[in-house]
């Protein structure tokens, strides 16, 4: 295996992705990711010098909307799915320590 994914890397990616893995899962994830990256490394066989990265397939440009109010008050419909709600707001664990 060319790619070696360290424990720190999996820990770091867990922070980025907000995922908490068990030790068993971490071990598996290190293996899976290394294998996948080895596989993706095939792309390096291709010379892409001077090739513009293509994020959109089509040249659709300038899709704009007028500055006109169309949205109404959807509070109740949107809050209906909230795991926890108070005073018309979404409740989260305190954001400061």
């Amino acid at each position, binding site marked *: 295996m060319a790619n070696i994914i360290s424990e720190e890397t999996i820990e770091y990616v867990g922070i*980025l992705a907000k995922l908490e893995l068990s030790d068993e899962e971490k071990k598996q994830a290190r293996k899976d990711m290394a294998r996948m990256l080895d596989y993706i490394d095939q792309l390096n066989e291709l010379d892409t010098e001077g090739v513009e990265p293509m994020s959109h397939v089509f040249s659709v440009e300038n899709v704009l909307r007028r*500055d006109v109010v169309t949205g109404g008050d959807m509070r109740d419909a949107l809050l209906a799915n909230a795991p926890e709600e108070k005073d018309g707001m979404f409740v989260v664990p305190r954001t400061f320590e």
Partner: protein
Amino acid sequence: MGKEKQYETVIGLEVHVELATRTKIFCGCSTAFGGEPNTHTCPVCTGMPGSLPVLNEKVLEYAVSVGLATGCEITRYCKFDRKNYFYPDNPQNYQISQLYLPICRNGSVEIETKDGTKQVGIHEIHMEEDAGKLIHDEWEGCTLVDYNRSGVPLIEIVSEPDMRNAEEVIAYLEKLRLIIQYLGASDCKLQEGSMRADVNLSVREAGEAYGTRTEMKNLNSFRAITRAIAGERERQIDLLEAGEAVIQETRRWDDERGCSYAMRSKEDAQDYRYFPDPDLTPVRISEAWLAERKAALPEFQTEKKIRYREEYQIPDYDIEILTGSRQMAELFEKTTALCGEPKKVSNWLMGEAMRLLKERGLDPEDIRITPSNLAELIAMTNRREINGAAAKEVFEAMFDTDVDPARYAQEKGLLMTHDTDALTRAVKQVLKDNPKSVEDYRGGKEKAIGFLVGQTMKAMHGKADPALINGMLRELLSGEAKFDA
């Protein structure tokens, strides 16, 4: 040995400005202030699954206008990127912003410093969405989220590290504010958060390379900015003097305690994984559209000042103040166009308007008087329908509620009387009642006439023309006539 090191402060600013659009940047929800929590929301600005963003054309217009007004190059092909980070005020847990191809680059604004004028470079301006509001519920020990502000359009103006002290920072912010207000792109109020400045600061010994910088947030007033700059400069110098390193970090300014603290957590990796947002298409700016934007730019302060000097015979000081806000300048120009008396218009604005703004704690942008009403008031004084004191009363009413001056003066009984018989009777009565003053005046005490005018005004319940009374008194007193008969 022992020679004090000379440190230079190097400051760059990241200024966020809330744009004055009717709707949010990517959805049709209102940007109006003051709604109940979460009442200006839809699936898009609350990050509902399956919802998609569509760019508000007005945001692009404003961003490009600000770029043009600050001498930026406009990026002809620009894109939006996602900035990924988890925080509850950010419903998608990514913010749509611009990293790789921001809309404007390489501009500058000129500021006045005590050593003359100075250019502050603008590195870039990009468009992005604002976050929602977090309200800390102390009782329950939790945080509540309101997404009314989520998706409100912002531009972020990133300066070069060209400033060296708080005075320059404030001059730069004032200049940006003036330009943006002239464009009508934002009201730029620091206190209300429609303009927010993050300060990037480092120190270095004179002639050395830039030191490590920190970023300071939560600066809600010029005073806070000034204090934070002084505090951070001192903190960094202390570290360096103690042989320690400055750490590149984000710090939060606590204005109450007068110090900053690091906003660090091991859960904040500060790795935003920017990539082009696949839900939005690129924006390509045509020459024709750009020419339209250029043509639509207003006359800014610099040009206005030159024109005012040529067109209106008013003092430079007045010109400076009047052009210091677009609202004030427009009121001045439009009123002058109606009444043709620049000096009188200026006097009203420089005197009464400024006094009332200060008294009410308002900014010049808040002035709501219509030019036709102010012109009418000036005409009324010209026609001697109203005296100075009454005119000031009318002006104050206009300032507060933009009333029609003629109707207001009529209703409040402020119009001057034109009954000359009554006035003559009143004058004669006053002369008769005040023989001492008559004697004083005739004895050479010029000031005594003022008292007599005042007495007559009182007798006329303020509805007379003091100049006319003054004339009548002088005429009657010029003879030898006795009045006590």
